[in-house]
């Protein structure tokens, strides 16, 4: 059996609606092969030769040279073999059954004995191609109104309760760690130290908004530990003084009662330091290395020690030993208590080496693997109390050392610049010295030097 196949004018150029027949290359009765050129057409864009999609015998040319044909209308019809690729359907009945699925598959070709029926049937174009008037041929039935349909559809969607009115829902979302937030919001939260699971989302789809994060940031310092542990049933708990706790106590007492402490404080605009940290983070050399204001602070102290060597010394009653190297101690809060490991010869290190050393020191301390050797022979110490949200404090000297610096939290505060109040990243540097060794003027110069680097890290290039 054979059947008649139609080749309808395709859209050959991204959005064309019609084309003019320039010249026919075949005539009725001719036998054509697949991909044989049958006609040359001219579109708004170019002259194009069209290859025949099927093999067969031409039955009719649906237009004369010079005629303009609409995209989707028959160009030629041909008698083809049953099941020929490109002719698609094997339906040979007089009235074609128009199955939209089969039609979609056939794209621009269709098969029928009745050309008129084909012309009137839907000729789907490829998505994004062809004339828009095809849409006009689609008629919507009296089915569900769109609004109702959407409402019905929405009902089947997972319900995101308005968290403002339903605390329970927030908790359940948090538990599943299913916070909805865009990447920039997540980054903002990370930068501000805001735990996204603790922020009440107010977005219309239940997502965390920028305002939510900013609001959370202001509360974070106050409600850093939102979960209040249950009150213990015992009236007292007795913790034996031993191990690290005992060592800490002895060291503190020894330090506080043997060395007369003197403390001084200075507020400083750390905006440039924060920018510098940001730039370092973004640089390829520091990729994968943790960069924090503590790193700049460490560099600042090492620089200031060079200018004020007395703060980097040891008192032995008989003599003062001024160290011409810096074993840089960092007070670390660990599960086992406060320890002060130090970075040996930190003054010989580049910024990158120092950053890696600090990261390593912190990691070892966290794992509880700091060795006694790591804590021996320190010459000066920093304690980073800012990470706990504290502005400053009076640090107590690490025994054997004569200087310790406390880095407070860095946060936006009003600051006078050129007689105008601006919002700057401000911090307080607190420092304590052994007054037996360090006089007030040296102490002040040292702290001022540290502060000036924090204010202008470019001084490190000196």
């Amino acid at each position, binding site marked *: 059996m054979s059947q008649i196949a139609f080749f*309808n004018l395709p859209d050959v150029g991204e959005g064309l609606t019609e084309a003019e027949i320039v010249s026919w290359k075949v005539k009725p009765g001719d036998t054509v092969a697949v991909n044989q050129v049958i006609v040359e057409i001219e579109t708004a864009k170019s002259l194009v030769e069209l290859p025949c999609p099927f093999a067969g015998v031409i039955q009719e040319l649906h237009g004369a040279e010079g005629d303009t044909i609409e995209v989707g209308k028959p160009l030629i019809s041909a008698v083809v073999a049953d099941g020929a690729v490109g002719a698609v359907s094997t339906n040979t009945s007089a009235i074609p059954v128009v199955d939209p699925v089969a039609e979609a598959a056939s*794209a621009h070709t269709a098969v029928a004995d009745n050309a008129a029926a084909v012309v009137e049937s839907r000729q789907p174009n490829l998505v994004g191609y062809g004339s828009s008037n095809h849409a006009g041929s689609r008629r919507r039935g009296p089915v569900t109104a769109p609004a109702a349909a959407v409402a019905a559809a929405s009902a089947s969607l*997972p319900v995101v309760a308005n968290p403002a009115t339903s605390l329970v829902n927030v908790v359940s979302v948090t538990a599943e760690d299913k916070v909805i937030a865009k990447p920039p919001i997540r980054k903002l939260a990370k930068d501000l130290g805001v735990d996204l699971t603790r922020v009440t989302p107010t977005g219309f789809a239940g997502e965390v908004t920028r305002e939510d994060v900013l609001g959370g940031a202001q509360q974070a310092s106050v409600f850093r530990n939102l979960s209040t542990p249950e009150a213990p049933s015992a009236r007292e708990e007795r913790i034996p003084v031993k191990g690290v706790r005992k060592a800490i106590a002895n060291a503190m007492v020894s330090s506080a009662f043997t060395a007369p402490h003197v403390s001084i404080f200075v507020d400083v605009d750390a905006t440039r330091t924060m920018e510098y940290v940001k730039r370092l983070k973004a640089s390829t050399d520091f990729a994968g290395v943790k960069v924090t204001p503590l790193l700049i602070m460490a560099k600042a102290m090492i620089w200031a020690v060079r200018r004020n060597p007395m703060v980097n010394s040891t008192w032995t009653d008989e003599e003062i030993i001024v160290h011409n190297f810096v074993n840089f101690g960092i007070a670390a809060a660990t599960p086992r208590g406060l320890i002060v490991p130090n970075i040996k010869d930190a003054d010989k290190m580049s910024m990158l080496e120092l950053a890696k050393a600090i990261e390593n020191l912190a990691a070892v301390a966290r794992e509880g693997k700091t060795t006694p050797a790591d804590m021996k022979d320190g010459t000066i110490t920093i304690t980073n109390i800012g990470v706990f949200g504290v502005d400053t404090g009076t640090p107590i000297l690490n025994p054997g050392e004569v200087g310790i610096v406390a880095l407070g939290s860095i946060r936006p505060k009003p600051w006078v610049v050129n007689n105008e109040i601006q919002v700057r990243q401000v911090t307080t540097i607190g420092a304590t010295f052994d007054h037996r060794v360090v006089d007030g003027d040296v102490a002040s110069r040292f702290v001022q030097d540290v502060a000036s680097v924090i204010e202008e890290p470019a001084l490190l290039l000196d």
Partner: protein
Amino acid sequence: MSAQDASRVPMVQLLSPEGQYSVPAEYAEYGKYIDQLGEADFLKFYRDMARIRRFDNEATALQRQGQLGLWIPAIGQEAAQIGSGHGVGHNDHIFPSYREHGVALTHGIDLMSILKMLRGVNHGGWNPDETRFHLYGIVLGTQVLHATGYAMGVKFDGKVGSGNHDEDLAVISYFGDGATAEGDISESFLFAATTQAPIVFFCQNNQWAISSPVNSQTTVPLYQRGSGFGVPGIRIDGNDILASYAVTKKHMDDARNGAGPYMIEALTYRIGAHTSSDDPSKYRDQAEVDYWAARDPLIRFEKFLRRQGIGDDFFAECEAAGEALSAEIREKTFALGEPPIENMFKHVYSETHPLIEEQLAWLEAYEASFGEGGAH
């Protein structure tokens, strides 16, 4: 600069247009890579070029028959693509432009995936994690930035020059002469050079950026474009598959071993239109097309193979394979249905998203409002 003038610029050519193989002394390092090839490799090169040529011709016809929204022919560029594609190592990653059907073939991409994309029923459909051949970059030049970023990541991961054959890798990015005029390419050069990322920039200079000739894009040969950034380069005869293979393989090996970025400019010619929506007769002379048609990479390699004693049987076998391929992709293309509408929404977010689900529900309801079979 007309195409003919290009002969004044030094260029790696191992195979003359007459199919004569010879290695100039200054390119001996590249000849070593050809020494390691055997007849089976040469036959594979030809089979792949013939296959992709046939595929290209069939796809062009399918577009003219309304089966594809668009076709992007690569006829004339087979040697540049098949040769370089085979020069890419087993771990390396490829970031193609939208014309790299030949490179796709060398890395196991199902050619139907490409047709589906140009019919608009998928977005590529292959998994770059598995094929190491990334999705086509449609927006000009973007893939080169992606490639550079990927190569920088490789460098940061320490997978360059470690000597571990299973871990080390390099990246190659394909782009055309037109893309070199985009800032993206300059930025890529800069980042690749300053980080010494393991990447080869493979520019197929097919001499026409749609209707803009290459001499409106540059006043120096394109292979020199990277040098100011610190990316050295070389020009190869892009219609010489052996040069394309050897030069790509050497510089991918070098990049993988830590030599940093390199640029290869493959001088070739786009015999066909820019895409099926373009009519090149409006802006270029037929004489120029004829000049390059006579330098067809397939003809050149056929001459080489015949000099090696390969006979008619092999070429007849390639012809038959082409016939079978044509029939197969015609049948499969005509049988392609319309994808379910939810596919449009599938890859917007990696996880379900309430807004996307709402839009999908709306569209499904809208489509359903036409009633059963009510598309009249």
